C-alpha cells in the first residue's frame, strides 16, 4: 500500500487500507517523541505553513510540533496578521503561499469545504485541520490511534459519540473513520443537535445517555458550545450536564474499562465531570501526545506523495 494523495481533506474519501497506513506510519513516528533528541530528518528542507482562519491553540501547536520533529520549517499565519482582512480571496492567499515555494498548507477554516476548494486550486499539499462542521480528519485519526493503542483493535468495538453532533467536524470524521475500520458507532445528543438523516451514514442514534454508555467500549465526549451565532442551541448548560454529562455515577453502569476520550478543550462540569476527565478511564492527555505522531504521519505521507508526483512529471518525455 502506498499513499498517493497530495492532500488529506477528510476521512470520508479514504479507504480502509489508507486509514491503516496512516495509523501504522504514526506508530513508527510515535517513538521519535520519546527520544532524547526528538527529531528526524524526514521533512528537512520542506516548508509547512499553518494557515488558521479560526482561533486554535492545540491543533495548531500540535501540527507545529509534528512538523518540527520532522525537521520541516514552519510558518504560522493567523487571520489577524494576514491580508485576509483586506479581502483577499482564499485562492489568492493559497497561491501566494504556493509562490513562496511552501510544500504543505495546514488549514483551519470556518467554512465547510474550504480545504477541498483550496486543494483543487493548488499544486501543493493541503491538510485539513478542520473545515466548518465538515471534517477534522487528524483529530479523528488521533482518537482512533489512541483507541487502537488501548484496546488493540478497532474492528467490532462499540464507540459512542456524545454531544453536539450537528455542529461537529470531529464527530463526522470519527464516524467515517470508525465505520471504515469496522467499529459500531452510536451517537447520543439532544434531538436538536442530531443532524438530518445521519442514520444514513450507518450509525445508531439515541437520546438516552445510559443506553449510549451501556455497551460502549469507548465514549468520545464532544465539547459543548452553547453560544452559536443566533442558532438555537440546547437551552441550559446545567440541564445538559444533568441529561448528557459524563459522570462517575454514569460510568459505574458502563463497562469497567470503558475508554473516555475528549478532543479538548474540556468544559469541566458541562459535558464531563472533573472526576471523569482526570480519572482512570480518561485518555485525554494521551490523545494529545498521540496527536503529534498522527500529524507527523500525515505530513510525511502527503510530502512523500508530492515527491512521487514530481518524479512522475520529471520522467515524462517533454512534448515541446
Amino acid at each position, binding site marked *: 500500500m502506498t499513499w498517493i494523495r497530495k492532500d488529506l481533506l477528510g476521512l470520508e474519501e479514504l479507504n480502509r487500507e489508507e486509514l491503516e497506513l496512516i495509523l501504522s506510519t504514526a506508530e513508527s513516528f510515535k517513538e521519535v517523541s520519546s527520544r532524547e533528541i526528538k527529531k528526524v530528518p524526514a521533512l528537512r528542507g520542506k516548508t509547512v505553513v499553518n494557515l488558521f482562519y479560526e482561533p486554535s491553540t492545540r491543533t495548531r501547536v500540535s501540527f507545529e510540533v509534528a512538523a518540527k520533529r520532522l525537521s520541516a520549517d514552519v510558518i504560522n499565519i493567523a487571520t489577524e496578521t494576514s491580508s485576509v482582512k483586506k479581502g483577499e480571496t482564499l485562492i489568492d492567499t493559497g497561491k501566494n503561499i504556493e509562490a513562496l515555494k511552501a510544500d504543505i498548507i495546514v488549514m483551519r477554516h470556518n467554512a465547510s*469545504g474550504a480545504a477541498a476548494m483550496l486543494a483543487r486550486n493548488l499544486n501543493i499539499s493541503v491538510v485539513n485541520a478542520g473545515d466548518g462542521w465538515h471534517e477534522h480528519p487528524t483529530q479523528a485519526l488521533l482518537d482512533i490511534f489512541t483507541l487502537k493503542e488501548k484496546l488493540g483493535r478497532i474492528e467490532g468495538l462499540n464507540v459512542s459519540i456524545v454531544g453536539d453532533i450537528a455542529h461537529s467536524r470531529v464527530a463526522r470524521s470519527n464516524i467515517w473513520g470508525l465505520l471504515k475500520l469496522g467499529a459500531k458507532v452510536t451517537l447520543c445528543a439532544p434531538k436538536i443537535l442530531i443532524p438530518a438523516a445521519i442514520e444514513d451514514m450507518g450509525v445508531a442514534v439515541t437520546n438516552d445517555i445510559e443506553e449510549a454508555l451501556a455497551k460502549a467500549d469507548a465514549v468520545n465526549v464532544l465539547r459543548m458550545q452553547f453560544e452559536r451565532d443566533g442558532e438555537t442551541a440546547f437551552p441550559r448548560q446545567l440541564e445538559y450536564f444533568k441529561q448528557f454529562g459524563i459522570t462517575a455515577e454514569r460510568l459505574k453502569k458502563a463497562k469497567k474499562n470503558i475508554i473516555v476520550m475528549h478532543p479538548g478543550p474540556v468544559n469541566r462540569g458541562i459535558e464531563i465531570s472533573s472526576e471523569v476527565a482526570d480519572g482512570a478511564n480518561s485518555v485525554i492527555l494521551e490523545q494529545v501526545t498521540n496527536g503529534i505522531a498522527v500529524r507527523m504521519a500525515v505530513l510525511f505521507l502527503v510530502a512523500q506523495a508530492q515527491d512521487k508526483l514530481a518524479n512522475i512529471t520529471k520522467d515524462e518525455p517533454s512534448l515541446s
Partner: protein
Amino acid sequence: MKILIKNGHVIDPINNLDEVRDILVEGSKISMVEKNINVDADKIIEAEGKIVMPGCVDMHVHLREPGREDKETICSATKAALHGGVTTLLAMPNTDPAIDSLENIKLLKDAIAKSAKANVFICAAITKFRQGKELVDVAGLKQDGAVAISDDGASVDSDELMLEALRSAQEAKIPVICHSEDKKLSDSGVVNLGFTSTRLGLKGISKESEYKRVARDIGLAEKTGAAIHIAHISCKESLDIIARAKKKGVKVTCETAPHYFTFNEEMVLGFDTNFKMNPPLRSKEDVAAIKEGLANGIIDVIASDHAPHTENEKEIEFERAEFGVTGLETELAVAITELIGAGILSWSKLIEKMAINPSRILGIDKGGLGIGKDADIAIVSPEKEWIAKKENFLSKSKNSSFINKTLRGFVEYTICQGKVNKWNS
C-alpha cells in the same frame, strides 16, 4: 432578403406539423411552409436530417443589466441565448435598479433596443425595490410593456400584500411569477437539507421552505382568480400541490430548470459551487418526480433560470458563493439528451414546454412557425454529440453545471427575426 430552409423535419405543434417541409423566410417573417418550395432565395440552408423547430422561449433569465454588467449584459446574454437555440427570453427584474417603475422599464427598454440580439420581454417587479413592502403600479407597468410581474429571488412574505398584488394582476390581466420560498424556513441554508447537508457539514434548505410557500401562493391565487406561474420547481411535494390545484381549476402553471431533472444533490459532494443554486438540487426521488411531472404535463415549462456570476463570486468557499448557474446555452441540448433520449418527452411535447407554453402564459405571439409569424427558428442536429466547453460559451459568465458534459442535440442555426446565426461549436 429571402432565406429558404430546405428538407428539414419541421416540428410545429401549434400548426400540427411534424413532417419534412421547406420554409421560406422573407425579411423577418415566415412566408411559406410547403413541400418543395422553388423560389430564388438569397440564402439556402440545407436541413436534411435536421429538426426545424420554433426558437425556444425561455421565461426565466437574469440579464444582470442594468447594474451588474461584469456578470452579463443584454448583448452577451442574448448572444448566449441564440447560441442555445433560444430566440425569446423574459428578463427578470432583480437588476440594479430593479424594474419596479415606469422610469426603470423605460431604461431597460432603451438598453434592449440598443443591444439585444434576440427578442427580450420584460418581467417587472411585484413590489418597489423588490422589498416586499409596497406594491408597484401593476396596470401602469403592464401598459408600458411588462408581460409578467415577479419579485424573483424573493417571495412576497406578507399574505396581505401578495393578495393585493394578485388582485391587481388579475384586474390588469398579467401573470404573476412566484419565487415560492419561505426564507424563514430555508434559513441560511445552501444545499438540500438531509443526508447531503449532514455529510458536508453545510446548512440545509428544507423542502418545506418551497412547498409550503407554493401552497400559500396557490391558495391566494385561487381566492383572487389571478393567473400564477410557479418558478423553478425542485421537489415532489410542490408538484403534488400543483397537481391538485390544477385539477380544481386554479389558474396555475409551473416550470422547472434542466438541472433539476438532470442532477441530484449528490453532485454537490465535492463542494463544486457550479451545483449551488436556489432551490438546491434535491434527492433522487425528487429528480424522478420532476421527470414524471414533465411527462404527465403537470410541469408546463422548462426554463433555464440563467443566473450568471463572475468567477470571483463562484470559486470561493461554498457557503459564501452566489446561488445560481448559467443555462441559456445548454438547456435545449440538455432537454434533448435527458428527456427525448430517455423517452420522457416527444419532440412536440418538448417544444410545447420550451416555446409554446411560455408564450401562451406570457401572452406573446411566439412559439409557432405559422405563415406571417416572426421567423424565430432553431435548426438542430438531433443526434450530434458535443461537449459543453467553458471556452465556447458566449455568456460573460461560465458558471455552468454542464461544463465538460457530453450533450446530444446540437443547435446548427438559430434564426431570429429572419437573421441567421450559424454555430460551429
